[in-house]
């Protein structure tokens, strides 16, 4: 790829990404930081390409939007690593790599003779990052799962939903993203160690554990108070009251929650004066000492009295009016964004967040996030779309000395 890599922070590193959908985000983050990321798919394409939604609603392995979302900045090759020739070729590629990222069931890489010790003997200092639902060891390691199962096992699902209904899962898969992002950090820590010492190692990522890593105060609340945090639906639960968090407005929903004490006082003051300006505050709201409002002690009656005029106020406004008013006052109230809102969001526009990337095969450009970090030194931008099936076979296999003739033979044999 020549000079282009010089532009990026992790200039000169290469990763082989053997993951399925459970691991895409890891490689995406590394690729954005400048790693030469090679997505290794089975011949015919990764099964995750069958996952919808699809471009123009046409189910096709080259049109999976899930694939597009998390594989930009990666080049792609096909390789059957279960065949002897495929393993031989993979080992040649390993010699050129710094990282291997994979998401096969525990023990699978070993069973192919591609376990860590073999890889490390081929390329000293190699880093092997494995992303699995429950990690490489432990009583659940071979459990079958899906996002809803993993999210249930992580503690997030139990706390989400209405109190009088079953817990409800976030319908867009999340466990794979927590794991993928965590895997990028784990891989980078291992990389830093290797740069210091020359020593490589294995990084064991468990989707359950990455998702369970952040449960806010649920675990200490159980340990210290014996209280299990429950679902509170559109409300927020505290010891003596529940407080509304989701409010209706004219054309959608507004999110606002009552924060007590100094942290929330500014928002309350500004909100009440905003309401006052429109004749919608009342004497009760004006009389409250917001600095000393303790949300853990406040009674349901007080919460309800505060809520009623606020409810009316939000209901009389549109999402846009509320967003603008909150921004002008620098207070923490916001409408629920639709996908259309996000694509037209003023903040994202001022940050130059979206970028259009060419998809010549679809004869179009598609909007992606430009970069997750702005660096004063280097650019970490989305540069090119996700690879087609085997798009870079010639280019990458050429580097390790395979001729066009070899490639033709390998294709016939179902290796690439």
């Amino acid at each position: 790829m020549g000079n282009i890599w010089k532009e990026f922070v992790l200039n000169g590193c290469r990763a082989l990404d053997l993951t399925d959908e459970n691991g895409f985000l890891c490689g995406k983050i590394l690729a954005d930081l400048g790693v030469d990321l090679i997505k290794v798919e089975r011949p015919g394409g990764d099964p995750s390409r069958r996952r919808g939604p699809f471009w123009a609603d046409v189910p096709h392995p080259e049109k999976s939007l899930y694939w597009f979302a998390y594989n930009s900045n990666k080049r792609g090759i096909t390789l059957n690593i279960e065949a002897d020739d495929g393993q031989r070729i993979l080992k040649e590629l390993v010699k050129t790599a710094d990282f291997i990222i994979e998401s096969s069931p525990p023990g699978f890489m070993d069973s192919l003779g591609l376990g860590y010790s073999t890889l490390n003997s081929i390329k000293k200092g190699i880093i092997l990052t494995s992303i699995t639902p429950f990690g490489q060891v432990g009583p659940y390691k071979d459990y079958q799962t899906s996002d809803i199962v993993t999210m249930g096992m992580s503690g997030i699902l139990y706390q989400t939903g209405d109190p009088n209904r079953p817990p409800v899962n976030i319908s867009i898969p999340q466990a794979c993203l927590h794991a993928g992002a965590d895997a990028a950090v784990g891989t980078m820590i291992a990389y830093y160690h290797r740069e210091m010492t020359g020593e490589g190692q294995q990084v064991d990522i468990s989707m359950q554990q990455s998702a369970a890593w952040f449960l806010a105060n649920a675990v200490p609340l159980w340990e210290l108070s014996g209280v299990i945090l429950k679902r509170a639906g559109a409300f927020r639960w505290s010891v003596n009251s529940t407080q509304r968090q989701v409010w209706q407005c004219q054309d959608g929903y507004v999110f606002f929650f009552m924060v007590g004490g100094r942290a929330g006082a500014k928002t309350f003051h500004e909100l009440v004066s905003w309401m006052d300006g429109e004749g919608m505050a009342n004497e009760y709201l004006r009389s409250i000492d917001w600095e000393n409002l303790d949300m853990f002690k406040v009674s349901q009656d007080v919460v309800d009295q505060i809520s009623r005029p606020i409810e009316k106020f939000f209901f009389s406004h549109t999402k846009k009016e509320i967003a603008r008013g909150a921004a002008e006052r620098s207070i923490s109230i916001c409408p629920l964004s639709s996908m259309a809102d996000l694509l037209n969001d003023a903040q994202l526009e001022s940050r130059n967040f979206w970028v259009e990337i060419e998809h010549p095969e679809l004869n179009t450009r598609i909007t992606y996030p430009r970069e997750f970090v702005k660096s004063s030194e280097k650019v970490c931008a989305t540069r090119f779309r996700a690879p087609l099936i085997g798009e870079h076979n010639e280019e990458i296999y050429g580097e390790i000395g395979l001729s066009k003739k070899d490639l033709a033979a390998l294709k016939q044999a179902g290796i690439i």
Partner: protein
Amino acid sequence: MEARSGVFSGIKIAGFGWAIVGPLTMKYFADYGATVIRVETSKRPCTLRISAPYKDDKPGLDRSGYFNHFSANMLSLALNMEHPQALEVARRLVAESDVVMDNFTPGVMEGWGLGYEELKKVKPDIIMLRQSGFGPWGPYAQQPAFGMILAAMAGLPNFIGWPDGGPLPVGVSAYTDCISPRFAAAALIAALDYRNKTGKGQLLDLSQFETTLYFIMPAILEYISSGREPARVGNSHPHAAPYGVYPCKGDDRWCTIAVFSDEQWASLCQVMGRTEYIDDLRFSTLLSRKQNEDEINELISGWTINFAPEEVMDKMQSAGVPAGVVKNAADIYDDPQLRQHNLFWPLNHPDMGLFTHLGQGFELSKTPAQAHMPSPRLGEHTEYVCTEILGMTDKEFVELVGAGIFE
């Protein structure tokens, strides 16, 4: 104090952030050997220090379970930045640091004279990592960043709820607070490596709002492609049935079951002892199961309600059917898998007693995360940092104590 070993041994981070996003980012470094110094003040303490639950229900800056759960391995320097002499101490800290971390609302650091340009004058190769809610400029830049609000701003509640109800927040408050730190930590390690190789520091700017959008990207692409906004679908899945949360024996006990293939359906029927459903035309194929999903869900609920969720999980998993306990906080606390992977670190804390500190979400085979010490009391390491790291004489330190800057 003994020297730390570990991957980031010798790296010093001056942490001006508070609440969750900054500290959680620093945690990756503290747990792998970096010296992470949290600059705090009792004049305006970290919001977590004044958040419940407290040890024995008694509030106190060093007694919050929320703060202490997340802050293992970090040092605390009490420094009141509003004091006129504090800036000089902060500058000395910056001079000794590799990284300055900031997740305050934009403008706070600049107001103290600690903006990136100022930091560079003190330490030319400094790396400054900023993570505010919305980024340092733009119309929302000055809005406070609460995770629940950011999640709504990023559209997440569109994906949570039932077809007959409204959008719901993620149950874990501040859900987005764990998203940005991962992107930030990966970028920061890359920046450290880059500095080691080129001698150049840099400013890294992440927005919590922006990183959260990576967690819904397929839906944004779907809207671009088809104009379709997400619909609330409860627990149903477009390509699987049964798929959902089912009631179990006990108070508010639930299990999940996810069936993607006809083989898994057959296995599930066998586990339930209802083999007649395997070839029943209403249920035998994915399409027929999707068509009769409500009926299937009722059938399964009628069976699962007789068992504890652990029993359902064991029976289904033994038959190769994806299923699990919907774990509450008590279940997570005792989870054998998470325990084996060292998610939790029981550490003795002077105010909390033996208390569960959070470990790491993943494991490295040769350089494991270290449970080196419990979360710091506010200002616990002020003297150590000033004399051992900043090189103050005892006399100098005592004078500054007298001036009241370490509060």
